[in-house]
C-alpha cells in the first residue's frame, strides 16, 4: 500500500486525473492490481492492452462507475475514492463514452444530445438544439438530428454517442474504444475533433486498439497487462517497447 498523504492541491501543477496504487477485484478475479498513472491538464492518455487486461475497468473506476477496493483516485481535485463524494459534481467535470454506445433508444438523436445540457446545465431548449446541431456536425452526422438510434448504423450510433458527451463540454473526457466501429475515414474525422479538443485544453483518457490512432494522438501511452501498468511513457514506446509483452502486443498488430 502507498502512504496515504494527499498531494498538495494546486490547480496549476496537480494532475487532472491521478490513479495511485488502485486495486479492484470482481469476486475472486483480480482485475486491477496496483494501477497508478497520472494525466496532466490538456494531455491525452491512451490505455492499451489485451482484451480482459482491465482497461475498461480502469476507465470506469475514474468516473466512479466501479468502486475500488483500495488505493486513491483523484479527478479535478475531487477524491473519487471518497465514499461521500458528490457524484454529480464529478460527472459535470467528466464526460464518458462507452464501448457499447448506450444511446437512449426512445429519444431522437437530437433529444439524446440536448437532454443533459438542458436538464443538468439548464441551457435553454433553443440553445441546446443549436449546440446539438453543432456537435453532430462535428462528428459528421448533421443530417441525423431527428432519427432514432435504431435507425442508424453502428458507426453512426457511436458517433452520436460521442457527440452527446461533447455537448456537455466536460473538463475530462473518457473514451472506451469509441473508434472500434468507425471506418478509417471517420476515425480520421473523429481524430481531428479530438485533436481540436486537446488544443482547447481538454484532458482525455482513452482506451483504443488502433495503434496508429494512439501514435497520432497520445501524449502518454499506458500499456496494461494482467491488471497492472506494465509499461508507460510517451507515444514513442510503441515504436521502441521496453518490455517483451508490449513488443509482442504491438508486433502482432499491423
Amino acid at each position, binding site marked *: 500500500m502507498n502512504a496515504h498523504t494527499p498531494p498538495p492541491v494546486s490547480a496549476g501543477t496537480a494532475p487532472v486525473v491521478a490513479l495511485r496504487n488502485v486495486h479492484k477485484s470482481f469476486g475472486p478475479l483480480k482485475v486491477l492490481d496496483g494501477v497508478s498513472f497520472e494525466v496532466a491538464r490538456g494531455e491525452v492518455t491512451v490505455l492499451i492492452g489485451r482484451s480482459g487486461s482491465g482497461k475498461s475497468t480502469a476507465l470506469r473506476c475514474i*468516473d466512479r*462507475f466501479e468502486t475500488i477496493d483500495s488505493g486513491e483516485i483523484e479527478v479535478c481535485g475531487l477524491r473519487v475514492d471518497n465514499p461521500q463524494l458528490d*457524484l*454529480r459534481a464529478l*460527472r*459535470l467535470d*467528466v*464526460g*464518458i463514452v*462507452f464501448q*457499447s454506445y*448506450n*444511446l*437512449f*433508444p*426512445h*429519444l*431522437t438523436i437530437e433529444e439524446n444530445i440536448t*437532454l*443533459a445540457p438542458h*436538464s*443538468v446545465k439548464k441551457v435553454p431548449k433553443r440553445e441546446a438544439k443549436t449546440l446539438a446541431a453543432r456537435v453532430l456536425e462535428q462528428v459528421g452526422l448533421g443530417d441525423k438530428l431527428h432519427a*432514432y438510434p*435504431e*435507425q442508424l448504423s453502428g458507426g453512426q450510433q457511436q458517433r452520436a*454517442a460521442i457527440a*452527446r*458527451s461533447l455537448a*456537455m463540454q466536460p473538463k475530462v473526457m473518457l473514451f472506451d474504444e469509441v473508434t472500434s466501429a468507425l471506418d478509417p475515414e471517420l476515425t480520421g474525422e473523429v481524430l481531428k475533433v479530438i485533436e481540436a479538443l486537446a488544443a482547447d485544453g481538454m484532458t482525455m483518457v482513452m482506451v483504443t486498439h488502433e495503434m496508429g490512432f494512439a501514435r497520432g494522438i497520445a501524449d502518454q501511452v499506458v500499456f496494461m497487462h494482467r491488471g497492472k501498468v506494465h509499461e508507460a511513457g510517451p507515444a514513442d514506446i510503441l515504436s521502441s517497447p521496453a518490455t517483451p509483452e508490449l513488443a509482442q502486443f504491438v508486433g502482432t498488430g499491423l
Partner: protein
Amino acid sequence: MGLELDFSVVLDRWQSLLDGAALTLELAFIAVICGALIGALGAIGRRGGNVLIARLCGAYVEGIRNTPLLVQIFLVYFGLSSLGLKFSAFTVAAVALTINVGAYTTEIMRAGFDSIHKGQIEAAEGLGLSKAQVYWHVVLWPAIERVYPALTSQFVLLMLASSVTSQISAEELTAVANYIQSETYRSFETYIVVALIYVVLSFIMRLGFWLLGLALFPRRRRLGTPL
C-alpha cells in the same frame, strides 16, 4: 327449447343503460388516472433506497393483489361508515378502485423499471443527470413504453371489474343490468345487450389508450417497433 328472445323490453330502457355505462366509464377514468400516479410512485418507492418505504409499498401491493376487490370495497365502505364517516357510494367506489389499480400498476411498473439496462442508467449518470432526472428521462418513460400493453390491459380489466361496485349501491352498468333483468326476467336479452355495451366500452378505452400511446411515444409512432 322454447326460448324466444325479445330485446324490446331491454332496449326500451336504453336511457338507464346509457346512464349506467357513463357511470362505469367515469369510475374507470378516475381510478386509472389516480391509480397510475400511485403506481408510478409505488414502483419508485419499491425500488428506492429507503427500506421502510420499500417494505410499505411491498405490503400494499401484496395486500391488494391477494384479496378480492369485493372485500376491499366492503371494508372501505362499511369501515368508513363504522368510523362515522359517510361518503357517497360513488366516492367510495372510486377510492376503492383507485387503491386496487394502484397496486397492480405498482407491480407492472416495477417490472418495467427492472427491464431497463444498467448501461442506459450509467450513460445518463455519466452525463451528470441527477437521480430524479435519470428516473424521469431514462427509466420511467422507456419503462412505461415497454409495459404499456400490460398496463392498458390492466386498466380495461379494472373497468370490467368495476361491476362489483354495484354491491355498494353504485348505479353502474351491471347494477342497471341486474335491475332490468330482475324487473323483466329477460336475463338472456339483458346479458347479451350488456355484454355488447361492455365490448363497446372496452373498445372505446382501447382506442383511447392507443391514441394516448401515439401521443406519448413518438418513437413508436414513427417506427412502429416495440422498444
